[in-house]
């Protein structure tokens, strides 16, 4: 029997967009306010999980052709290499630096190297959460 899931699909399409936006917002606000890579990553991962729930995994895998195991590995790689980078400049491991730049649209913006580390964390969290959910759902 095929379940009628028009409402679920329609709502999810809008919902996924909102969740992704909120996730990115949380990720960026984490620098000075509650949020950050871990929380942002969790929220972003829920968007992917919602997609997996609404549409079957084949459709989603076609739309997002990434191996989530690799994504989490990439995240850890990014986090570690951004932490290790200062070691080549004679700074301790995990040193951070920031600066103010005049960007075209945003005006004066603070850019910090910690964002690289945080995006690594976010990628790791997304990869791991989606991986866990899909491996559980694969089991009969």
């Amino acid at each position, binding site marked *: 029997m095929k379940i009628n899931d028009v409402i679920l699909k329609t709502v999810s399409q809008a919902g996924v967009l909102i969740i992704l936006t909120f996730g990115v917002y949380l990720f960026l606000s984490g620098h000075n306010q509650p949020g950050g890579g871990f929380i942002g990553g969790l929220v972003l991962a829920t968007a992917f999980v919602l997609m997996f729930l609404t549409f079957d995994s084949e459709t989603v895998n076609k739309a997002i052709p990434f191996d989530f195991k690799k994504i989490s*590995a990439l995240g850890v790689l990014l986090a*570690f*290499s951004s932490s290790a980078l200062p*070691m080549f400049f004679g*700074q*301790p*491991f*995990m040193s*951070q630096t920031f600066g103010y730049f005049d960007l075209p649209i945003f005006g004066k913006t603070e850019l910090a190297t910690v964002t690289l580390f945080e995006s690594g964390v976010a990628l790791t969290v997304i990869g791991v959460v989606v991986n866990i959910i899909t491996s559980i759902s694969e089991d009969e």
Partner: protein
Amino acid sequence: MNNIILLPVLIPVMVGILLIFLRSYGRTQAWFSIFTMAATAGISYYLLEKVQSDGIQRLDFGGWAPPFGISFVADSFSLLLVLTASIVTFVCLMYALFSTNKLLQTMYYYPSVLFLIAGVNGSFLTGDLFNLFVCFEVMLLSSYVLLTLGGAKRQLREAIKYVVINIVSSWFFLVALAYLYGAVGTLNMAHLSVRVAEAGQGPLLTTISIVFMIVFSLKAGLLLYFWLPGSYSTPPVVTSALFGALLTKVGIYALFRVFSLIFNQQPEITHAIIGVMAGLTLIGGSIGAIAYNDIRKIAAYNVVIAVGFILVGLAISTPNAIEGAIYYLIHDMVVKALLFLLVGTVIALTGTAQLHQMSGLMKNYPLLGWSFFITMLSLAGVPPLSGFIGKVLVSEGAIESGAYILLALSLLSSLFVLYSLLRIFKNSFWGETIVGKEDQVPLNSRFLVPCLVLVLLTFGIGLGTEGLSAYVTDAAETLLNPDIYVDAVLEGARP
């Protein structure tokens, strides 16, 4: 500041991540991991020399000075263990290169080993108690993977026990950390040492220290070793060799560090409990070692006996005893890996782990037999092999401080070690040869080479004790005088 301290953790992690992307290239992964461990061993030797010349090294992550930030602290004790762990892993990976099958290799076997060693090295090097918890978790998560890889029914059954036990003990660890932070307001080990000394380690702090003791005893297999023989005897050979050589040692290291640096004010309570537990561990391990006919179980119970013996050194805590315990710790990492590799090779050759189903292997594989013989002597503490000096020093310490019961137990346990391994030697290597020269399974020299390297190491440590003694004396001195450690970490920041 010295970024090099981090490299024994950073290099394995980075290479481990890279290997995830090289999933389908089994052989390449193996070579990468072997070179990584060689590099790690080289770096830790360099650091060990540096500590001898420049004193304890420290790295504050992100430039946050202790006690506010997280630091890595490298003293001789940590580095001796990091160096030994790296060498042992190097040799085990050489064995793995030819023994693991294709399936295992592509299921992230090598990345897991590298993450395991990163966790182990991290636990040895960290100067922060919470960070120790994190490194423990890195190590444990990789060990869960390694334990279940292969997916035999026996393996999964033991893995469930192992995972549950470790999750519970990790939870206890977290609770103890929360108690301690609530009581003294810091988790930096050096700062804790100062604060606990100032507060005078009253009943509350002693109770917290006992919670820590339970946690580390579970990890080390001190008295609470009921999970150990099962889970160490089921996984593939290399995995159980790594487990037997490294995992319990991390728990032992944590016990040494915490009870010499932080909770050192009430030895009549804490060290006495450790002494009783060590004694019971020796008894239990000895009974287990002679009770089974499964040679992997016998090897696993030998791990338990060694844990008891090393902690006798901590319980006594005289300079001699501590030095002896450090010697024995190094020796045991090498020889336990060797024992498990040999036992694994025997099982691979005969196709059985039962003592009575094999006989006369000496005729078929003389080199293997004599390697086993040397391992046995080394574990029993016969000079000039590596086990001797540790046993002598711990016994001297026990006599000095009048701990005659512990002395008797630890010496008797050596006899049980000897007897349990002699049983294997007599049954499986001596006796009638069952399999003729023509029909025997050929023993590939590539399996034997790693074992021989470890045999050479046990000779080397035994004969080169003189060369090692400078490092060990320094390590013992730092353990016995926490001020050296505290001053190095909190230079200038001390109230």
